[in-house]
């Protein structure tokens, strides 16, 4: 190794002409014990840097230039991951103040808003990052579908991704109850009632979820434990599996005719990822500064707001439940999840992989787009076009 040489040359001191992180690394024995390869300068050091770091070795040492194009992946998977990181960090700080007790929960929200330094900002960041994560994970799934990236050999990783989507929804839903205000209480009332529509298991699952027959102390504690421990750990494990499989399945998908040219991951991939992280943090900051998270009056089981709505990402389901409990509560969600899971195993000929809206895949893309748009449409209707008594209203007339 190069650092051996000065010693061999005897007393000649290390020249310090270069300056910056490189020379600091060379000079400091402690730093050198942590970062063995030194500041990556040569091509060999760049490859070694990726391999010798626990964080970086998740990446390949070299990446195809075709997958670095932002217009191909839109960075959606990475954005989802960074939002999860933001949520973990802000969530941990919120946990220092939040007390999962029906007598204290709402008061700790007020403390966060009015007493804790930057408490409102933390709450806002956590809330908007959570909403954004639901949306971005959904968009990431659409990207993977429309570029055919779920096809062989990536079928299983698609299924892992479906699991991550469901976990994201579960995390968001369990967090929704915690403020213990009217919005939380009635959204979870409606949401857990939809769960109960599931035949045979539904009422039992609701009972276990609530730890009783109604939303009270037991339910709040269960949602808290699920939200802060069980689901984040499951998410971290599944994220690790998802990333690992990306590598094992041959890296990000690319078209056969795409350029085979590769560049070293340091700095080309690492810097791009850093840029996405900065953009995500900046966007969440901006949202948290501009918009305050809602907090209504304290939860009251005797007063139902009109209309009572589930969290927005379940309003599509609620809209369908309005037409028929079996349709919206059972048939549609089950069919959607099952279809997503079996999809990559039905489509066994990988054609048009690595290309947005490939012509050979027009039918699959059209069907997926139709279903996704229908889901978005019922969600928009449930969110904006439903007023008191779930009657049709035009949002601009309110």
């Amino acid at each position, binding site marked *: 190794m190069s650092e051996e040489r000065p010693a061999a040359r005897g007393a000649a001191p290390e020249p310090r002409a270069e300056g910056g992180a490189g020379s600091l690394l060379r000079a400091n024995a402690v730093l050198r014990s942590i970062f063995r390869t030194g500041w990556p300068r040569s091509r060999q050091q760049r490859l070694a840097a990726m391999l010798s770091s626990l964080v970086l070795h998740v990446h390949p040492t070299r990446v195809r230039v075709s997958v670095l194009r932002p217009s191909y992946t839109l960075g959606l998977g990475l954005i989802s991951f960074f939002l999860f990181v933001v949520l973990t960090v802000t969530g941990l700080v919120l946990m220092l103040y939040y007390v999962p007790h029906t007598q204290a929960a709402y008061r700790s929200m007020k403390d966060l808003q009015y007493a804790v330094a930057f408490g409102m900002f933390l709450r806002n960041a956590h809330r908007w990052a959570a909403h954004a994560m639901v949306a971005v994970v959904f968009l990431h799934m659409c990207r993977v579908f429309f570029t055919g990236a779920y096809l062989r050999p990536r079928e299983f990783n698609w299924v892992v991704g479906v699991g991550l989507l469901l976990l994201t929804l579960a995390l968001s839903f369990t967090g929704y109850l915690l403020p213990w205000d009217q919005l939380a209480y*009635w959204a979870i*009332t*409606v949401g*857990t*009632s*939809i769960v109960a529509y599931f035949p045979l298991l539904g009422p039992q699952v609701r009972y*276990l979820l609530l*730890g*009783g*027959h*109604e939303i*009270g*102390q*037991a339910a709040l504690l269960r949602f808290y434990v699920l939200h802060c421990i069980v689901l984040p750990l499951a998410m971290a494990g599944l994220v690790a599996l998802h990333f690992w499989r990306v590598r094992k399945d041959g890296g990000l998908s690319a078209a056969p005719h795409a350029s085979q040219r590769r560049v070293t991951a340091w700095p080309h991939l690492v810097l791009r990822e850093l840029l996405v992280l900065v953009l995500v943090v900046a966007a969440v900051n901006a949202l948290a500064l501009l918009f305050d998270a809602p907090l209504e009056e304290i939860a009251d*089981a*005797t*007063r*139902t707001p*009109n*209309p*009572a709505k589930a969290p927005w990402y379940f309003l599509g389901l*609620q809209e369908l*439940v*309005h*037409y*028929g*409990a079996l349709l919206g509560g059972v048939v549609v969600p089950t069919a959607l999840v099952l279809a997503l899971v079996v999809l990559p195993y039905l489509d066994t000929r990988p054609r048009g992989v690595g290309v947005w809206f490939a012509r050979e895949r027009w039918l699959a893309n059209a069907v997926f787009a139709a279903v996704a748009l229908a889901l978005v449409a019922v969600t928009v209707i449930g969110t904006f076009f439903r007023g*008191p*008594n*779930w*009657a049709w209203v035009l949002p601009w007339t309110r």
Partner: protein
Amino acid sequence: MRPGTAAPAGPGTPSRRRFVSIAGTAGLAAGALGILAALARSVVPEVFYEPARRFPVGRPADFPPGSVTLVSERRLFVFNTPEGFYCVSAVCTHLGCNVNHEEGKGFACPCHGSTFGEDGSVSKGPAAWPLPRFAIGLSRRGELVVDTRRTVAASFRLKA
């Protein structure tokens, strides 16, 4: 076991080693399943920190003849009719919102527009089931007691 009586060990013949291996694996699996079952069982609540599901709602005299009274903290209605008392749930069977009562018209849910007749039967969806009738009785102290764990037929009346 004496050497002469042992069955010849070969493929397809269960040897002692095979038996021990199967029994050992089965034992470990049974133990693991037992532990998992115990863990899963402990998730099922045994103690409820929630209002009792059988409770007094007041004396019969608190409910004037011919009246319909909303007991809002219990989310139910108490009817006092000439034939006797009965109790109807105020929780919509659709998605759990509280229904409102309109005299002579029945019940209407503010959330998703379900309406129920005066007898609690569904007159307009999306609710699929009628509002349940809860068992109502008279305690020794002379109070009306509702038991929300027990539902009764629509013909049920309590003479008090």
